[in-house]
């Protein structure tokens, strides 16, 4: 009876694993095929590795890949740093209105992008940063602060308050405590927050679509969307482009996935 139950369990698990992995298998095999091979059979692996689709995709998304790096890295780093500062303050200091302010900041996590789309576009146009790197970096920083604040605040609450008080008695001010005590203790937390923010900013599509025009500043996810071809759908080029676009976040998750999961679970507390 135990064996039958186990068999059924494993069967279900393997079935759903294959179901989830199939799109990735399809993407990878299609990227390495020629169009005739794709038309001939969609499910079989390629007979030989055709790299022409990658070359063609890279011609279109090479610059957007660089744009994404330029936009995502500083956004993730600065957003994480600012979230760390605010998280530190909210975890260790109480002042008039601190609870209300914290709730307001965290509520920012739940504001749907569509609700603020138009105001942000108008604002960036009015101040002259529309279709620039800054026009994307600043909103990404703003949107990453609420979750980073919550993340760091939860982490810093585990830092014993007596450690902070000891530093105060020893002569350290608030900035000094952050620099000498808090920051050195937050190494892994920092890295996890940067990776989480990197992932969602890199994979973002909507903001890249509305705040940029043309490949000069366009991030990679928007460029990948434009690979669909004017008259004929070039599946291998689209899949090659998608694979190249997904690679950075896939690599991050492959090596640091367990830390990211722990970080996300900590945010839920």
């Amino acid at each position, binding site marked *: 009876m135990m064996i039958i139950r186990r068999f059924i369990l494993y069967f279900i698990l393997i079935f759903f694993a294959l179901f989830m992995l199939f799109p990735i298998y399809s993407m990878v095999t299609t990227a390495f095929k020629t169009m005739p091979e794709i038309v001939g059979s969609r499910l079989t692996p390629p007979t030989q590795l055709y790299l022409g689709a990658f070359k063609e995709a890279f011609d279109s998304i090479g610059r957007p890949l660089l744009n994404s790096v330029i936009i995502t890295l500083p956004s993730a780093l600065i957003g994480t740093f600012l979230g760390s500062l605010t998280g530190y303050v909210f975890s260790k200091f109480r002042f008039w209105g601190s609870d209300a302010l914290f709730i307001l900041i965290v509520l920012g996590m739940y504001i749907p992008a569509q609700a603020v789309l138009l105001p942000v576009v108008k604002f960036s146009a009015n101040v002259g940063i529309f279709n620039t790197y800054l026009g994307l970096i600043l909103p990404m920083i703003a949107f990453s602060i609420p979750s980073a604040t919550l993340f760091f605040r939860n982490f810093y609450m585990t830092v*014993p308050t*007596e*450690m902070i*008080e*000891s*530093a*105060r*008695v*020893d*002569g*350290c*001010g608030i900035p*000094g405590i952050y620099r*000498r*005590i808090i920051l*050195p*203790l937050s190494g892994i937390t920092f890295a996890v927050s940067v990776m989480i923010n990197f992932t969602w900013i890199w994979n973002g599509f909507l903001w890249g679509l509305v705040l940029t025009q043309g490949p000069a500043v366009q991030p990679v996810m928007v460029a990948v969307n434009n690979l669909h071809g004017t008259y004929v759908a070039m599946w291998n080029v689209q899949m090659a482009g998608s694979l190249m676009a997904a690679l950075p976040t896939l690599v991050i998750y492959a090596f640091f996935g367990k830390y990211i999961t722990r970080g996300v679970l900590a945010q839920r507390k």
Partner: protein
Amino acid sequence: MSKVTLNGLTKRFGKVEAVKNVTLEIKDGEFVALLGPSGCGKTTTLRCIAGLEKPDEGDIYIGDKMVTRLSPPDRNVSMVFQSYALYPHMTAFDNIAFPLWIRKRPRNEIREKVKKTAEILEISEFLNRKPGELSGGQCQRVALGRAIIRNPAVFLLDEPLANLDAKLRISTRAELKRLQKQLGATMIFVTHDQVEAMTMAERIAVMNNGVIEQFGSTDEIYQQPANMFVAGFIGTPAMNLIECSLVENGRVISLAFNTNTLPVPDYIGRVLIKKKKSTNVVFGIRPEDISIHEKNKPNSYKTKVYVVEPMGNEKLVTVEMGNTYLKVRTGLDFKREMGENAWMDFDWNKAYFFDKNTGKTIMYGLNKSANSK
């Protein structure tokens, strides 16, 4: 080093008054304990002196300088926390040097001072280790080193021995006392352990519910407790406290409780009647001031053994007199067992009498000088 003066210190947390109008003067170079049960306000008082809590009323002086509204770095105090609060990412050297790094002292000066401090505390060989690699006792010494290194006006210690095992606690008590004498430092430490307070401090402030019940030397606190709380809190085992009524029968004055009647010495009876308006008193006597015998002796009272607890070097016997139970310390030669009869008599020199309503001490046995105050 400096004296510390608290004038009418009051601290509230919402509706709770954690410290109520505390006035205290600690002399320069004195070792003082703030002693009391959990929640009595001793740690809050210490934190107010450190500047980690802002008092709602009252003033704090360190030396002649009023520091009530000053931030902690400006008060020239150092503090050792119960958990030591060592910085886990820094070595023991860096932890000790930290207060000097903050003040941007020259590297040579820092190196010399850390070396000297480590020698005093006997931790020179551990300076390159991080707190995670140190034992509890070593961590405590590193925390002390961090406090000592900048030679503050006052040292504040919050339950410094609480996290040590029993054996280490005893040895560290002596070391801390020696260190305080060596440095000539003004030290104020908080503890709930009266043995710690009695063995280490020169004077003890016994606190309860935010007020200081008594502030005096260990002898004064032990032998002349100001009230029932101090009498019951100090001493292990605690003082026996019996609610009784004064009964006059001709010239003999007795204490009546349950169905028992205890005649008291003439002097005590006369003073009690004179000082006490009502007849209700609480009679207190320490376990070591009761003698217990296996046979009836003159002026002894018959009792029954309730339980015997051997302690190794002595026995702790609980006796019952009606619904009243008394603890008695006796020698190993006492052989009576549970349920058997025994006889006890009291050292009336060491008897205490308290007002049942106010808890204040009415008289100290046959101590005429103490009773005349």
